[in-house]
């Protein structure tokens, strides 16, 4: 049913990601789909990595780990953005289109008041993506 499942990941919050990644992995195993973990980072040194290359390497390691744990084909895809705090949603949507993802599984927080001012990333992606989107609450 699905051939390529995309999961946006924030390596700084691996713990809160696990439910979404596990869900996506189970779906990928069920349909024999490829799992692509997409991370967005700035080109400046950050808390996760000092260079875009280091970020790519860390993302790949995380993807390999998930692939081995669930027995699926998992890849990491790093997206380098000039201003990740504001460009996250457009970057994710563009990446989903470019790689031809047919399902996006994304961790999101419980809806709260601030969503009226700053919509959640999951909400925005679900509202605009061409692919099917599954939002995973904590």
């Amino acid at each position, binding site marked *: 049913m699905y051939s390529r499942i995309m999961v946006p990941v924030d390596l700084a919050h691996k713990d809160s990601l696990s439910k979404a990644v596990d869900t996506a992995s189970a779906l990928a195993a069920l349909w024999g789909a490829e799992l692509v973990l997409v991370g967005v980072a700035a080109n*400046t*040194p950050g808390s996760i990595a*000092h260079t875009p*290359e280091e970020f790519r390497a860390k993302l790949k390691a995380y993807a390999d780990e998930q692939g081995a744990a669930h027995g699926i084909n998992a890849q990491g895809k790093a997206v380098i953005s*000039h*201003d990740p*705090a*504001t460009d996250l949603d457009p970057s994710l949507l563009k990446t989903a289109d470019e790689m031809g993802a047919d399902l996006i599984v994304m961790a999101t927080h419980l809806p709260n008041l601030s969503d009226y001012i700053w919509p959640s990333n999951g909400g925005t992606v679900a509202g605009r993506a061409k692919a099917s989107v599954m939002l995973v609450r904590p």
Partner: protein
Amino acid sequence: MSDTSQDQGIPAPEGAAHLIDTEYEIGQDNIDGEVGPFGFDIHNPVFLISGLSIVAFVFYTLALPEQSGALFTWLFGAVTKGFDWFFLGAANIFVLFCLMLIVTPLGSVRLGGDEATPDYSYIGWFAMLFAAGMGIGLMFYGVSEPMSHFSSSIGGIAQENGVRTDWAPLGGAAGDEQAAARLGMAATIFHWGLHPWAIYAVVALALALFSYNKGLPLTIRSAFYPILGERVWGWPGHVIDTLAVFATLFGLATSLGFGATQAASGLTYLYGSDVAEEGTRAFLGMPFSNTVESGTENSSTLLVLLISAITAIALVSVVRGLDGGVKVLSEINMGLAFLLLAFVLIVGPTLAIITGFFDYLWAYVVNLPALSNPATQTIAGEGGRGDVNFIQGWTSFYWAWWISWSPFVGMFIARVSRGRTVREFVVCVLLIPSLVCVLWMSVFGGAAIQQVVMDGYTAAQDAALPLQLFEMLAALPLAQITSLVGIVLVIVFFVTSSDSGSLVIDTITAGGKVDAPVPQRVFWCIFEGAVAIVLLMSASGLKSLQSMVISTGLPFTIVLLLMCWAIYRGLRSERKA
């Protein structure tokens, strides 16, 4: 990217090889959490110290206006008069250092590693660095500074007890209009040409090198790693970063004040009668009125409204981010500025301006050694230059001003310059903007001077400082339209400074993280506007702000000198690696 080079057996140059090995993890000192529904991620203690000190400063100037006014007037004089030689000498070092980087092999180092590719096209890159770097000053001083130097030069030298009391640069040019025009333009170009851009280039290069090539966080303190080692993550680093936040915020707030004044004067001039705010009320269709202090003074309500409007546009821009907001505005800004420039060039005395451009550029080159001579003793003929008022009132003030702006502009330039080689970087940050400034000043200042010399039209010369641009435009056709474009440009120039400034302060106070939650940059943007508004309300507010900016320039000059050494060390290690 690096795969192909690995296939050929060459180790990938982009990567961990050049990184400085430090235990420090970016963001390790940060506190994150939520206030109500808004997330935050701030550096402890830089965020709190800088925020609280700024609030304390504002309270001090408001609560004790006379005492603070006296203190800041003294401070302003002490810094610009007592340390003029230091500012002049240091700025010369920065220019020579940058020129050295162009011609030596160190210039071939690429920011971001050998295989990095530029993030932005030349046009987008240039628009952003120019809009952040000079911005409003070009609108404010483009006509008035050449005019001032022209007038003072033509007045010649006046002395009292062996000390010069005139404001002419160097020896002046008493009675000779052509020579005075040349000297006046040379002095203006001196203040807007190589020196300020060398100051920016040093800071920008230090930041870009230590974060893109060495993997340190994008804050000012990182440039001091070669000198201070691990101590930069402790208090010495906190002090450096806090100073940078001060300089940036006070600089922006002062500019907001000046910009609001000029925009208000322009609106009054265009749409009002002699009553200041009437013009704006007519323009905006505002129903309310407020008491007018004096005939042509701008009312405070008008200034507050303008600053609020500028801040509101800047807010939209920072929330849209670097590519969606700041870059787009900078490009609009450059487009409009170019149109106005082309208009004045074509409609004004075209031939005189074009010959003037080369003439003034040559005058700049010829007078550069004398103008930049740091031997500033007051008595001419005893090894000093003699033009004491010019040095202290103009040059020293400008140098301190550019230096205190440098953390902000430098950091912003660094943010958008990844992938350029050092040589390309220095040429584009030093030489091209300098040439554009020469062109701008030749067109606007040259047109105004021609009006005086050829037509005897002295309205621009006689007008108040914020109005001189509009008076110059008034003598050209379509003045209503061009003046409006001028006002819009003033406002857009401000917005581009305000939004990029908020991004910079946010990054510094988040310990170098560029992905801190968006509400944080919104906070700084509003805070800047609030500081400007509150200080405009008090009589000595703008003067106090300006003194603070100039005063932070002094410690920062030392910071910049150390940065040159750090850059040299850093580039040397890149070449070896």
